[in-house]
């Protein structure tokens, strides 16, 4: 009997180690879908880069409904996928419940903090990136008036706004920043009509560069800015291509880097907090052929200098969420 036990134990241990050696990473896309031109697509880009460079393969699933969230997590965990990476704060609650059931599986969640020993929480320093694009907006503006259009009025979006204003003021202390929030309910993320009208209202007040941190509402902002002949700044992923030559730059959260790093680390993935900022390439501004003519060499030099300072800690951009206040208006 005792022998049998030992034998079973050894077999189980072997199975475990074999499983660990062969474990494939898995990636779960949120409801927006794999090709959403934003968050999820960036994650997919990072995973593809990892697969091409290492020759490895990864498992993936695109969620089709809210109910699949937990199901997908458990399926991957039971199939031995490791680490399991998921995009989007909406996984927060589900992961809090699922993670303790699979202590040997490592999870990585992007844009949300889940406090569990086997979860890596990746969050972004959006205020640093907003600071950089704020500098560029102020330098590109001829009227010394720039605009900010947020989605729902929540601390996270005020963090974007506050970083942006600090960036603008660092270039031109007298510049005016017009700030509008689209609304106070989740409907504010998907109201491009109101985004358009807010853009027109800001143009009427003299703004000639607008920064949209507003999800689907931002589609209306960028569209109207392009129609009315002013510049706009995209958010989250590189949105320069949406209106080539009309989008000054985009504040990029390098979700692709976060996914790439997690997959590269594989089983050695460190748990706990992971802050992606300017310093480790997690936050950046977008440059490509669509905005090359809009960004002058001085602008680029100034922003790159600021990037170095932020990275070295010489320049600290105030984070609104630390004390819920912003030093500048």
């Amino acid at each position, binding site marked *: 009997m005792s022998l049998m036990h030992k034998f079973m134990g050894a077999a189980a241990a072997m199975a475990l180690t074999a499983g660990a050696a062969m474990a494939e990473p898995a990636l779960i896309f949120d409801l*927006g879908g794999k*090709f*959403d031109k934003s968050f999820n697509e960036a994650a997919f880009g990072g995973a593809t880069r990892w697969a091409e460079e290492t020759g490895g393969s990864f498992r993936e699933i695109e969620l089709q409904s809210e109910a699949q969230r937990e199901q997908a997590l458990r399926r991957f965990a039971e199939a031995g996928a490791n680490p399991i990476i998921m995009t989007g704060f909406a996984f927060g609650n589900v992961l809090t419940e699922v993670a303790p059931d699979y202590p040997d599986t490592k999870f990585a969640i992007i844009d949300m903090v889940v406090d569990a020993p086997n979860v890596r929480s990746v969050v972004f320093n959006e205020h640093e990136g907003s600071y950089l694009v704020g500098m560029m907006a102020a330098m590109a503006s001829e009227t010394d008036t720039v605009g900010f259009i947020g989605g729902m009025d929540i601390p996270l979006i005020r963090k974007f706004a506050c970083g942006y204003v600090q960036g603008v003021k660092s270039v031109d202390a007298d510049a005016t920043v017009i700030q509008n929030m689209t609304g106070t309910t989740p409907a504010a993320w998907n109201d*491009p*009509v*109101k985004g*358009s009208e807010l853009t027109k*209202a800001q143009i009427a007040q003299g703004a000639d560069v607008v920064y949209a941190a507003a999800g689907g509402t931002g*589609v209306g902002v960028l*569209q109207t800015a392009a129609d009315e002949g002013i510049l706009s700044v995209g958010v989250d992923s590189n949105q320069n291509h949406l209106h080539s030559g009309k989008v000054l730059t985009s504040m990029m959260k390098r979700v692709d880097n976060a996914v790439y790093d997690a997959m590269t680390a594989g089983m050695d993935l460190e748990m706990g907090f992971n802050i992606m900022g300017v310093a480790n390439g997690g936050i950046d501004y977008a440059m490509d052929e669509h905005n090359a003519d809009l960004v002058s060499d001085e602008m680029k030099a100034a922003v790159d200098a600021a990037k170095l300072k932020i990275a070295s800690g010489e320049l600290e951009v105030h984070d609104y969420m630390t004390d819920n206040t912003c030093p500048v208006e």
Partner: protein
Amino acid sequence: MMDLVTILLPILDSTMRLATPLLFACLAGLFSERAGVFDIGLEGKMLAAAFFSAAIAYTSGNVWLGMLAGIAASIALSLIHGLASITFRGNQLISGVAINFLAAGMTVLVAQDWFKQGGRTPSLQGDARFGPIEFPGAAALADVPVVGPIYSELISGHSFLVYIALLAVPATWWILYRTRYGLRLRAVGENPAAVDTAGVSVIGLRYSAVLICGLLCGLAGAYLATGLQAGFVKDMSAGRGFIALAALIFAKWRPWHALGACLLFGFLQALSLRPDAVKILTRVDIPVQLLDALPYILTVVILAGFVGKAIGPRAGGEAYVKER
């Protein structure tokens, strides 16, 4: 004076754009409810129309085809509402809620399947969207003080559908109050038994009203996606169908008053976009949220009977049963 014009003009301009979808939806609700069929599915129909107009305008490159597709989608949902609440005598409110859910889910699902862009359509360009219509002499008159900017910016330069919405108001009034059809339509919402006794089909009249409702909601959706915007984004109707319902009650189910109510609600929405202008005009800091909430507050005030009384069509919300 000039200052006032420069401040107010963009706000009034924005009022026109924001009031148009409300006006279409409000008139749509007016036809339906005047015939005794409550319709809280205005929002869903608008959303479905917004998606299909954008999707077909994108694939065909022709905004007119898009508009027709939007109207068709909206009418299809109207027929479902009609089938459930007129033919099968179901609860009109529940059918309306179901249509809202159906539209919210279906549009994103189909958009994802067709375009794979996270539930939105690609952005429309050129002939796939409604451009502004410049009135004759708008550019020439633009420099005339006061009158010039009012003519060239406020009156001219909107998309085709804005003018259609404005024309729909007298048309609705004429149909309701000056035609035999209108008289019967109003009667069927007040006392369907009398209409039935006179030998006119209650079911037929109600279906016709629901179809007109679908047509107008279709125009509202097409305006959102192809006039105001260049494409569909999920849930882009953002509660406008419900504000239109509030406007309908505020207007006490009358066409000209509906125009007034929609313009007022549109104006309040436009004001909330410009906290700076509000401050200049009133010298008081009014919270944006209050301006956003005002349409609903005003509607509640009206419903509570403080300012007149809002009494809907008497047979509204009830299916007609011939034999008891």
